[in-house]
């Protein structure tokens, strides 16, 4: 139910956007709850985009974990 899937915004017409779920799966979703721009990724739940995904933050999270685990490696 709370499942939400990332999709790339292709077109925006008011509250409705065409998004790409990958592998050619295109759908129209409601974007009234977010400030999405073309080419950004949004999280789609039950026909609505509920948030814009911060790709930099995603990279940053992974980078940090890789670093932390490496630093702590010698004592593992």
């Amino acid at each position, binding site marked *: *139910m*709370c499942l*939400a899937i990332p999709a*790339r915004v292709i077109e925006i017409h008011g509250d409705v956007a065409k998004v790409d779920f990958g592998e050619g799966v295109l759908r129209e979703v409601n974007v009234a709850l977010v400030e999405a721009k073309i080419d950004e990724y949004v999280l789609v739940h039950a026909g609505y985009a509920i948030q814009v995904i911060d790709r930099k933050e995603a990279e940053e*999270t992974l980078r940090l974990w890789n670093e932390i685990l490496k630093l702590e490696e010698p004592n593992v």
Partner: protein
Amino acid sequence: MKELAGFRDPELAKQVAKHIRKLAPDYLTKFCHVCGTHEWTMTHFGLRSLLPKNVEVIAGPGCPVCVLPAAEIDEAVELALKGVTVATFGDVLRVPGSDLSLAEARAKGGDVRVVYGVGDAVKMAKEEPSREFAFFAIGFETTAPLTANEVLKGPPKNLSFLVSHRLIPPAMELLLGVGDLHIDGFIAPGHVSTIIGLKPYEVFPSAYRMPVVVAGFEPLDVLFAVDLLLRQLGDSVARLENEYGRVVRWEGNVKALKLISQVFDVVDGGWRGLGRLPSSALTLKDEFREWDARERHSVRVEVGRDLLPGCQCHLVMIGKIKPSECPLFMGACTPESPRGACMVSVEGTCRIWAKHGVKR
């Protein structure tokens, strides 16, 4: 999205698992998640097998279909039998009511239709203006703003809403009050948190000394959360941390929160087999009463039969027992012939375990 692949990196997962083993204390530690999708990630990717024996992750009441009390299914059934077309999520159809499920109401001639979201229900109602429609609005904070948005936009006259939304933080508080259920930390649900942000969880570390980590749904998201919780235990602190920064902001989704507060009041709500929890449900504000299916069609059921004899769904939902500890699991109760809501919904713990062949 290439960044997301990193959250499934098996090499990194191995390293985190190793780190978790290093951090694990020598006593039994139990973390509780509150989301059907977290249970799916845990089970599908076999994450429990990566954890040391004394670090357990249990499933709380995070399946919105499972927690619906029978009384509210009964209301939907009554609507359908009265000739109102009930539109709802596919997962709800086979959930047992006191006497009938919506699927059984359909077999008796009721018009019950499956939709992908509230937007479809609005579209259907517009296309068939001579029919009465009711959207059975279930789901947690993730789904509530979608309903709110359609209500505020001014839905078609022949559509009403059977609002059965529930809120997650009160359910987490309930778990802390369960006597012999010992929890050492919460893995908070990422998509509920996308909407509500972090603030509603502050009470857990501050008043209950209970660590909370908001987490996403890729395998590494969950492993990171377990690692962060173990660190907190090791440091003897209780903090609120956000592992899912790529989506969850401190303030949540402000637009969505505003919609929720414009359209709904917070009221007490029933949870299947668990009784009524204070301030745990949403209802339409008085000014939107004309859209309330309960008012418009005079259906209101106060009490129902939540559990068929033998079903322990309520205990599975609060993480007190595992599905395999229910004597009916995979005997009298299977995904093909479910006896309880937890075996019906794709987010129900019993069903997830059954579908993945988990035996204990």
